């Protein structure tokens, strides 16, 4: 008993520190949710109402019934969903190709693709804006879908390349002996084996477009195509900021994503690092 007791005392400072840091990290979430549950009168109280009692669902009512919230949410879902699907469709074979079928210059091409990820997106905003204006896609959903595919592709290729590199050579040889075509090998053997990795790639690609702001802000402007980030930013006006509906929207927009990604903890680390460090 004394040994465990001593161990516990030794660990106590660490726990105090961890809890303290956790509170700081979690505070913005706490504040987002409690603010969204406050009635208008408590919103600007000073000192603030830390916990609204009883909580009011007025803001959620407002957001869900009236207003453009549903349009933004729907746009976000369509844009992120479709662009992720297309990105995976193009990116998965490419990753497999880079990992398993190297050819002359494929190494350099791969590095260039990965480097695209580090591009400042603002340098693409001008040509995209001008181009979309010419083909009259400004403020329409396809504009964002088109803009997000090149955003996701490097991510998907980089991530999956790392996994396909670990794909056992014997499996590839066996498939070749069985007379499977390259495409058959990919669809019937490699993809089923890499399913968890593909899940992570989908998650990261989806999140990249779900959270994207600068293209959405430049290429869309009305609820007919604008996504959630643009919608949320729109609650900040020059005259006043509508914190109630804003925090309510942000809660609905953020929390499901948070839950899904946190469930996939291990995947996150692999997703961040690709094949760079074995996690």
């Amino acid at each position, binding site marked *: 008993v004394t040994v465990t007791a001593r161990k516990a005392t030794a660990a106590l400072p*660490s726990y105090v*520190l*961890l809890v303290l840091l*956790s509170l700081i*990290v979690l*505070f*913005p979430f706490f*504040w*987002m949710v409690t*603010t969204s549950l406050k009635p208008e009168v408590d*919103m600007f109280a000073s000192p*603030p109402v830390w916990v609204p009692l009883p909580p009011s669902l007025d803001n959620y009512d407002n957001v869900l019934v009236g207003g453009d919230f549903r349009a933004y949410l729907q746009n976000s879902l369509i844009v992120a969903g479709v662009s992720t699907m297309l990105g995976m469709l*193009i990116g998965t*074979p*490419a990753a497999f*190709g*880079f990992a398993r*079928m190297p050819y002359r210059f*494929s190494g350099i*091409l791969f590095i260039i*693709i990965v480097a695209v990820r*580090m*591009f*400042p*997106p*603002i*340098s*693409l*905003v*001008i*040509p995209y*804006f*001008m181009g979309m204006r010419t083909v009259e896609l400004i403020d329409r959903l396809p504009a964002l879908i088109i803009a997000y*595919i090149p955003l996701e*592709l*490097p991510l998907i*290729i980089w991530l999956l390349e790392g996994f396909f590199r670990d794909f056992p050579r014997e499996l590839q040889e066996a498939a070749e002996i069985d007379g499977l075509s*390259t495409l058959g090998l990919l669809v019937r053997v490699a993809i089923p084996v890499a399913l968890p990795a593909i899940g992570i790639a989908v998650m990261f690609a989806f*999140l990249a477009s779900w*959270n994207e*702001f*600068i293209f959405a*802000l430049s290429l869309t402007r009305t609820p007919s195509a604008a996504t*959630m*980030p643009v919608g*949320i*930013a729109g609650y900040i006006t020059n005259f006043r*900021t509508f*914190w109630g509906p804003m*925090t309510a929207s942000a809660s609905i*927009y953020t929390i499901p*994503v*948070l839950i899904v990604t*946190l469930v996939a*903890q291990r995947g*996150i680390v692999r997703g961040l*690092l690709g*094949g*760079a*460090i074995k996690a």
Partner: protein
Amino acid sequence: LTVPALAILLVSVAYPIAWALNLSVHTLDLVNPEKSGEFVAAANYADIVASGDFRQALFNTCAFVITTLILEILVAFPIALLLHRGLPGTPIFRLIFSSPLMVAPVVGGMLWQFMFADQYGAINNLLAVVGVRGPLWLADVWGARAAVLIGNLWLATPFNVLVLLAGMASLPEQLFEAARIDGARGDQVFRFIMLPLLRPALLIILVIRLTDAFRVFDIVYILTGGGPGSATQTLSVFVYKEIFTRLHFAQGSAASFMMLGITIVLSIFVIRVLRPKEELA
């Protein structure tokens, strides 16, 4: 198999970049279209370099990148070390510390803007509880800069923590045991064994966070809009305003290419300096 992806990236990245590069050496006048399309060589670049706003933005961005990288690593290291000890309950803390990672920067910016508000903001009211009179964060030059740094720190530290943790997990356990047997103190182990071995992890953090911080837009745009004045305006925000507020498309292109150039030079520099002897995977 790589052809479709390459073709798409060629059309969607290489071509627009080339187009914008071409634009950056021509005139573009939306009001008088007949004056557009004139070849002006480096005139747009000269305009931008001569502009005080651009220099301010360049300075702000560099200052932001340097301070945020230092802060992020300084904050992330102790957290990663605490989590690496593997105390009971670590998975829960790990979950908590990685949660801001998936939050849209727009939402992060909005939350911090609300918390930094002067009268009803949570932060100044919390400070008042301990008897400190908080500054007018967002109206003050240094207050706004600090606010951007803090907000960004909240968003970006989790990435650093996770990468460091993964790096620590891959270290060979025997090395640490051997050091302990040889009587090395904790700080010696950290300084002479762990730190050098974490070089690949630190390299990844530096390269990724450097390029991310250099193009920072969302949180600045939402939290301060670049203000007060242009005290927190970063290069991305400057280029955005150049395009959509002042409609200087050609100059905006020129500025974005200077940004691109600096990013490339910086990342190559970091990789050169920090590359470990053995090649990274």
